[in-house]
């Protein structure tokens, strides 16, 4: 460690105490990345490009303010860190100056719960699952259920504009924000709680939400709560074609009966989702067996085959297609209305040829709703990589977007998709793709090729390059392509709130 860094470390020790600072190599290695698969590939091949210089764990907003002041005085890059489950490299230190990770997990207090206005005041280091459990115990829910709920934090959700699996009912995280307490890059505390959002002049929160730590550090937030629903119904339908299912979702959303959870799987994803069905396992051929194994035991041999021949498997999967599964969950506190929505949505599904598949697929989805992400490491161990891409557009373009992205990826990766996060005006598409990673150079080349071509197609089609994962390092070049000259507007915000460019350099508008 050079002299300047030793001096800086001493300053931070004075501020936080020795216990809450680390320059231990093991810690620095752990914090060198989030769950961006490109960095996971690098780590797997022993390539450590972006180690930070220090890790800090402040415990109060005052300590955060002082930390930012020190960073300004000493020209340090500060990277806010929640739980590290981001998948776009937003916390990867990529700056030309020393980088310090500011991990907010100690700031995990529930400051207040207002049961009359249904407002939760919570610190940003609070992890998702324990928070939801505490609220449930009191009869409430935040309504935010990302698949990363076990390993993501409130601050991370806000920084990346996260979405949960029940966004069709409760909205995305930006829809839940009442106010924020932010320490900007200049060390100023902005508390928007004095500004009720319906007031004249609009909503400042939306400038900080999604800024991925580039404008400041979100220390706490007031979020809208909901009563825990007492009643739930489960339904599922099989559509012959993906387009039929999409039209059904659109009508359900526009009629206001779309439900709490509404998900439509493409043919391959459906096959895997229904892989547990006993009748389906009878008489299945080799390909069917391979595919249904994806849902069960992911043996290394099997995975190696899958990721070695993605294009063949993509083609063959068409022959086993058995339609597209839609999973629907309606919930609420007015039983009669919940049932009404279920009946109405059934009528819409039937209008587009949806066949009733009973409650089982929806119940099964709910039971395993968070488990899919934890299957991904197996693919890395088997010599491949896996990643997900969440894009969104309006209903009139959704089907074209799906086929276009599929077309540009399918030769390079084993590919499947589902449609979730539906709204009255459009929907998100969630692609999952896996491919081989025989050696570092080939893997990165293949990985970058897939992303570049897919996002080029997304920009060409006028859709958004991210619905809820954020931008980070992975999509920054395509963000520039998408917004062109208007990239200057991010720089205006950066100059306003972080004039010395010390906050998460190299992301959005900041120079490295």
């Amino acid at each position, binding site marked *: 460690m050079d002299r300047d860094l030793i001096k800086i470390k001493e300053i931070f020790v004075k501020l936080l105490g020795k216990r809450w600072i680390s320059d231990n190599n093991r810690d620095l290695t752990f914090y060198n990345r989030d769950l961006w698969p490109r960095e996971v590939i690098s780590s797997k091949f022993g390539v450590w490009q972006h180690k930070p210089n220090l890790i800090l764990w402040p415990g109060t907003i005052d300590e955060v303010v002082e930390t930012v002041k020190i960073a300004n005085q000493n020209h340090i890059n500060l990277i806010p860190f929640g739980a590290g489950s981001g998948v776009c490299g937003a916390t990867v230190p990529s700056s030309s100056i020393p980088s310090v990770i500011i991990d907010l997990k100690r700031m995990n207090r529930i400051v207040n719960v207002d049961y009359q206005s249904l407002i939760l005041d919570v610190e940003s280091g609070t992890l998702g699952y324990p928070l939801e459990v505490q609220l449930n115990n009191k009869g409430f829910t935040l309504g935010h259920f990302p698949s990363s709920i076990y390993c993501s934090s409130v601050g991370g959700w806000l920084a990346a504009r996260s979405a949960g699996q029940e966004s069709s009912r409760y909205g995305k995280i930006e829809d839940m924000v009442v106010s924020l307490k932010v320490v900007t890059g200049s060390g100023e505390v902005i508390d928007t709680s004095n500004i009720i959002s319906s007031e004249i002049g609009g909503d400042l929160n939306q400038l900080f939400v999604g800024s991925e730590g580039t404008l400041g550090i979100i220390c706490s937030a007031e979020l809208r709560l909901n009563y825990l629903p007492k009643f739930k119904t489960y339904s599922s339908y099989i559509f012959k074609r993906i387009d039929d299912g999409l039209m059904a979702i659109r009508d359900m959303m526009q009629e206001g009966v779309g439900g709490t959870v509404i998900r439509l799987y493409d043919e391959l994803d459906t096959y895997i989702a229904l892989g547990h069905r006993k009748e389906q396992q009878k008489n299945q051929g080799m390909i069917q067996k391979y595919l249904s194994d994806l849902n069960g035991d992911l043996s290394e041999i099997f995975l190696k085959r899958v990721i070695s021949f993605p294009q063949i498997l993509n083609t063959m999967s068409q022959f086993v297609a058995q339609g597209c599964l839609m999973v629907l969950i309606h919930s609420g506190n007015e039983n009669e209305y919940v049932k009404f929505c279920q009946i*109405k949505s059934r009528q819409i599904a039937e209008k587009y040829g949806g066949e009733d598949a009973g409650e089982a697929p929806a119940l099964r989805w709910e039971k395993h709703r968070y488990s899919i992400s934890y299957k991904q490491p197996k693919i890395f161990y088997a010599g491949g990589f896996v990643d997900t891409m969440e894009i*969104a557009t309006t209903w009139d373009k959704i089907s074209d977007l799906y086929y276009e992205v599929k077309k540009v990826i399918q030769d390079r990766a084993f590919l499947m998709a589902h449609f979730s996060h539906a709204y009255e005006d459009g929907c998100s598409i969630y692609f999952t793709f896996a491919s081989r990673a025989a050696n570092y150079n080939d893997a990165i080349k293949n990985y970058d090729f897939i992303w570049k071509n897919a996002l080029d197609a997304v920009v060409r089609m006028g859709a958004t390059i991210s619905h809820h994962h954020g931008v980070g390092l992975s999509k920054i070049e395509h963000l520039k392509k998408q917004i062109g000259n208007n990239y200057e507007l991010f720089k205006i915000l950066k100059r306003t709130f972080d004039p010395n460019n010390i906050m998460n350099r190299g992301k959005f508008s900041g120079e490295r």
Partner: protein
Amino acid sequence: MHSTLDEIFELLKKDGIQSQFSSKQDRLYICASKDSDIIRIGDIIAKSRQRLSFVDSANSNIIFENRPLEHFKRLNRESMLFTASTSLSIAEGESLLNSEGYTIGYYFPPILDNKDMTFYEWLSNYHIPALNYFSGDLSTNIRNLSGILSNGNIYTSISAPRMATGSDINRLLLLTGQNLFYPTLVTFKINRMKQDINILSFSAQKIRYLFSAIASLATKGVRIDFASLYTREDGTYEPVLEIGYGVDQQYDFKNWIIRTVSNEGANLINTISDYHQIRERLYNFVQQPNQIELIAKFRAIGGLEEILKLLSQNFKLNGYLYRFEKTAFSFRLILPESAYEKTKDTLLVECKRYRGDIKFIDCKQHTRDEIPLSIYSRIIHSCC
């Protein structure tokens, strides 16, 4: 190097774009007559390294004037989106939508009754309507903005239902209003027209019960379209709450609404109100000159009642519910001229007792809040 005003004038003239010098020759007023002019103006300004202004202020010497542009409108039925030139009047837009079975979804009379109000004014004034609970407000409905920035760049956002691509730039442009951006085209989410609007009227001995009823409807997720609450004849009689809900599907929300409101201590009354009566009454309220708006989180309902009680002891006042959302609502007080200034001082003291839970806005001044205002100034300063 910056181009001179004369050089810009000549370039615009060459392209047939109207511009005119001020009498002192120190300012140039530019006027686009069609949408394609905007792109050319932007190009000239960007190359000149000058800055456009959208308001005529002492600091600017090139001013983009608000004149009628071509009226462009497109209805995207499949995605329930409407795109319109900002020069189009809201009344014309609403009428076009109505003929197709859609609506902007606003019930606030001045917006729809003022035939001259354009979408540009809607955007630049950041209009938040009353009676719009179900349809949301401007900020939640806008999907896409196009226009010209003060540096001449043409801004066009993409249209997606939701995005995770950084700060909400549309929101930034709307916040900074006419200082940074001139919107020329807007796309927003529309709503299906209801077959009918049913209205239920409730009264209660204490206004607190009616506030609680609104809070209960909002937090329990009962699907109503709007709520209108007003004190009667200076608060000497029972206040009245009217709930409007759309009739567009087989489900009837009536029982759910009655149960929820009655649980808070209000009674269904026989007063027959129709939507036009409500609009008319609200319109009359809005036209009253001296108004102060009290904004309260639901948890401060008791405090709001205390403040109203205190004020009504000293002044003759009337009031109505202006708007509400999931966690808060605003209530407007109409005051006699003599009480206006004095009331503000009283309110300042009273609202401070409730910290951030109750605050007031002086509607006469119509100023933006202090904190965002200072931030807007800094943003604008950063871009210049």
